[in-house]
């Protein structure tokens, strides 16, 4: 089941072309959905605008459940972009995958730990940035010794654990989903009629479950982003 990735060396850096392709496609889809939904804005919303506003309200609910709106309001656009991006990325690998010359080209970008960990590190870096910016450096540093000083090592470990779990949770869920989809697909195509019939129903079930998992993971990723953010920018905890 292991496929090679199309890797290219350039300026001393390794580029995974399939990741780059899928990232670009994800960005394009999100951008098209967002722009299509906000092309003709009206005070009385219709169709796509309703959907987009529902997403906004949903993310607003997430933020409100972790911090007060005074501090959390500025993260609304970040949250909406994250949830849309992760959701679309998760969905992309579900309908099919494309292999060219033994190299995997079409998949979910979030089925790659590099991508998810990049997102996770970005999010955690943002929480530190906003922590310093909104509370001041001294208050931010003193947070590492709260509630008691001897928790300091645990707090440091927590930061790394947060980053790793945030990225790897998303990666693991999506990657496992795609592995099983690939297995079912090869079962359906390599073992004749019996295999095709036997694989069809589990395939459908697993795809439905993957849609569910992809949605949940997008929600969890955004939720945890806001939780970590609240942890860093809130004064009361």
């Amino acid at each position, binding site marked *: 089941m292991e496929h090679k990735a199309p890797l290219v060396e350039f300026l001393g850096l*390794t580029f995974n072309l399939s990741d780059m392709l899928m990232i670009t496609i994800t960005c394009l889809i999100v951008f098209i959905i*967002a722009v299509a*939904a906000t092309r003709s804005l009206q005070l009385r919303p219709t169709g796509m605008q309703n959907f987009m506003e529902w997403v906004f309200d949903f993310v607003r609910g997430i933020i409100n459940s972790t911090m007060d709106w005074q501090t959390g309001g500025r993260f*609304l*656009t970040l949250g909406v972009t994250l949830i849309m*991006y992760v959701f679309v990325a998760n969905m992309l690998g579900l309908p099919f995958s494309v292999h060219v010359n033994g190299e995997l080209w079409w998949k979910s970008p979030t089925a790659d730990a590099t991508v998810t960990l*990049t997102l996770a590190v970005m999010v955690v870096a943002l929480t530190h940035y906003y922590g310093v910016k909104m509370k001041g450096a001294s208050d931010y540093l003193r947070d590492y010794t709260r509630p008691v000083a001897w928790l300091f090592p645990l707090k440091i470990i927590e930061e790394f654990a947060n980053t790793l779990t945030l990225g790897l949770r998303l*990666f693991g869920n999506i*990657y496992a989903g795609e592995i099983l989809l690939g297995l079912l697909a090869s079962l359906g195509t390599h073992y004749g009629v019996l295999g095709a019939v036997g694989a069809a129903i589990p395939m459908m079930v697993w795809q439905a479950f993957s849609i569910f998992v992809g949605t949940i993971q997008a929600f969890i990723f955004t939720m945890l982003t806001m939780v970590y953010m609240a942890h860093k920018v809130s004064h009361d905890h």
Partner: protein
Amino acid sequence: MLWKANLWALGEAAHGISGGTIIYQLLMFIILLALLRKFAWQPLMNIMKQREEHIANEIDQAEKRRQEAEKLLEEQRELMKQSRQEAQALIENARKLAEEQKEQIVASARAEAERVKETAKKEIEREKEQAMAALREQVASLSVLIASKVIEKELTEQDQRKLIEAYIKDVQEVGGAR
């Protein structure tokens, strides 16, 4: 073996860390965030805020209108009450005025009647005086006539006058007694 499996689970680690992908992912996400903010989220949030304000305004206005309507109703009610009272007062006044006029008319009629009666009385008095005077004169001249006829030669003019005057007094006394 275990080490290798772990690497495989991490997927990427098997090929080594691809720094280019990391940079690309970061860049793309930041660009996407910036573009969406500018072209989609900002307008959308603006319109949502606008709607919020619109609704708040409408509610405020509705509340204001309701209060105004209530105030107007109260005013109208007050006006109604006032006009009713005014009408009542007008009727009362008119009635009072009519009463007064009636009194006046009756009083003036009574005064007029009194005056007429008074004039008539005076007239009668005057007539009576005149008649008395005339009578007195006649009586005087008659008595003078009679007296002169009776005692034509014995009386001087002076005695005659004295006599007449005594008569007149008598007549006056008789008239006054009446």
